[in-house]
């Protein structure tokens, strides 16, 4: 008797959407076991992880703040993957967005200039788009794979930011510490909830969700992207340009990541520092797939990911648990998600060996 994986004739759409929930449930159970082994009441610990951050207004605003860059980057990545264009370098595009927008803030920030902030947002999106246009050019002209080029350009962007804040843009009054001066008030995003850090950037990220959905499922452009991604031969036969799809999806996802970058700079950070993102561009790849590459799914996934960060901090503060515990739970979540996904497209069948039957 052996076990074998066999392709399902028709993958269940319901299970496609239920598997992230199932994975979250299994990770919670697994996490509970870990907590119990560490000598904590599993229910108290799980409550601290998943519910405590949601129980205060402050926690909710922080959740929105943390989800904003993940959401923007993940939507861009998903649009690309639908067209079979793999943008792994959202981190770099985010950094370039922060540089471009931050540059505007440093150059023009002052008292009462209403146009500075909109210009920063545009510059941020343009900076990210320009950074993603390079892999697009390299792919369409020289057939260089975008997974490599986008990833490698990320490190270039991070080094460029490091050079700027160590050199020409360093705060002249900052004792030579590598950071720019703080932005002026007109270069900062307006706060949505008094006393919190949740700012107007969150609304832009939320707005991107229905717009991306409309683009992908209700426009000809979206149809072309998906066709190029799923059936390149058919797309060619229909006269859809593969080159156009590469350019469109990379520039769009670069612009969204760049926007995320300038929102960080003009929001919670308020200046440029050597590192503007603790890996949002990379975490967003996970978010995009956990959200099934669907804008509304990504909305949920980005909140779940943000919740894991916040809950992890809460576990350390309230229960004095080490950070490795939260890493373990994140790992379980991904493991169970990938595990569940195996069974969406395939099923386990028992093969009886004829000789022993």
């Amino acid at each position, binding site marked *: 008797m052996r076990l074998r994986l066999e392709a399902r004739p028709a993958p269940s759409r319901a299970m496609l959407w239920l598997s992230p929930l199932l994975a979250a449930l299994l990770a919670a159970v697994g996490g509970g076991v870990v907590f119990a082994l560490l000598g904590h009441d599993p229910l108290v610990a799980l409550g601290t992880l998943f519910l405590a951050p949601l129980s205060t207004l402050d926690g909710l605003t922080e959740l929105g703040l943390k989800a904003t860059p993940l959401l923007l980057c993940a939507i861009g990545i998903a649009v690309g993957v639908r067209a079979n264009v793999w943008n792994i370098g959202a981190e770099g595009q985010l950094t370039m967005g922060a540089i471009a927008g931050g540059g505007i803030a440093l150059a023009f920030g002052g008292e009462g200039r209403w146009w500075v902030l909109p210009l920063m947002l545009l510059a941020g999106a343009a900076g990210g788009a320009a950074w993603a246009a390079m892999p697009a050019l390299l792919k369409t002209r020289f057939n260089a794979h975008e997974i490599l080029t986008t990833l490698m350009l990320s490190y270039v962007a991070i080094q460029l930011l490091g050079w700027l804040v160590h050199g020409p843009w360093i705060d002249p009054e900052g004792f*030579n510490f590598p950071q720019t001066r703080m932005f002026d008030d007109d270069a900062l995003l307006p706060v949505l909830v008094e006393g919190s850090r949740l700012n107007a950037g969150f609304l832009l990220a939320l707005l991107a969700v229905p717009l991306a959905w409309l683009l992908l499922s209700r426009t000809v452009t979206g149809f072309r992207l998906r066709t190029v991604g799923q059936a390149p031969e058919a797309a060619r036969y229909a006269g859809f340009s593969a080159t156009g799809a590469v350019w469109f999806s990379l520039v769009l996802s670069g612009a969204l990541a760049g926007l995320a970058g300038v929102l960080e700079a003009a929001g919670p950070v308020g200046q440029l520092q050597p590192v503007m993102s603790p890996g949002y561009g990379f975490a967003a790849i996970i978010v995009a797939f956990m959200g099934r590459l669907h804008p509304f799914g990504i909305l949920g996934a980005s909140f779940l990911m943000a919740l894991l960060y916040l809950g992890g901090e809460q576990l350390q503060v309230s229960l004095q648990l080490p*950070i490795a515990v939260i890493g373990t739970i994140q790992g379980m979540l991904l493991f169970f998600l990938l595990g569940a996904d195996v069974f969406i497209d395939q099923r386990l069948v028992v093969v009886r060996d004829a000789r022993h039957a």
Partner: protein
Amino acid sequence: MSILRRSLLAAPLALPAFAIGRRAAAADPFKVGFVYVSPIGDAGWTFQHEMGRRAVDAALGAAVKTSYVENVPEGADSERVIRRLAQDGNQLIFTTSFGYMNPTEKVAKAFPKLKFEHATGYKRGPNLATYSGRYYEPRYLTGIIAGRLSKSGIIGYVAAFPIPEVIQGINAVLLGARSVNPKATIKVIFTSSWFDPGKERAAADTLVAQGADYLTQHTDSTAVVQAAEEKGVWCSGYDSDMLKYGPKTHTTAVEMHWDNYYVDRVKQAIAGTWASGDVWGGMASGMVKLSRFNPSLPAPLLAEVAAKTEEIRSGKLVVFSGPLKDQAGVVKVPAGKAMMDAEILSMNWFVEGVQGKV
């Protein structure tokens, strides 16, 4: 200003406030929070702060409840963590990395009744103090050891970022080395990260390949010491005693001791005598020192280091005193003059003999 306020306020308030503090402590422990930039691990910058936290627990027992959040990225996230600790009832919060400066300042303004202490920064407020160690003093001594032990005269230095605190250490090692070997040079590789064992290891290997036969680091992991042990070159550790990672080659380490400072500050906060200010402790204060020496070091060298240690502690030897020249040979500090603290704190140039760019 802060000293004045401390001495004026401390005397009349100390007794009654302490009594109140004691009564409150019986019912409700005094909560103290710590924010760490890297995982605690078992050696390094964060580990030393954790030793300080545990010293607070040991010294004050049930009167305090300490907690920490580790591996908190510098930047937007740290403000939330500090705020969370503040909302969670921590009345004194230590934020232990330079990049937490602006977030700590913001949260300190939002919670004027709580007390904050930021390590290695320069922004202060009525409820925000700063503290740091003069790491460059023991660094100078490791420079003497390097100058004596290195055959090639090339010291390899793995550093995180070219900020003043790091530059001070590099310059101090060179000055110490040149005090015994005028031809000594330093090669520097920056890793752009406080904690990245892989990058630190690669940088150490490169430096050895370039002829360095003494390694040291201004990063938070033990990777450089482990590399030195494997390659069989001398090294000195940073933050913590790292002898167990380099039993044959680890000469000593520049070690930080936050325990006394943390215990004192927590006691002051409980007693109501805490006041904002800036502490920059050198070897005389015990905040920085050299860890135990490798048993294989020759006795004359140990005697020399001991003598110089005494000179630094007594103030006879001032590390950054002239004549000091920069890499281009321009005299930055004339003979007979010592650098002011403000000048040391904003140091952004390498002394002659350091190879590398700020």
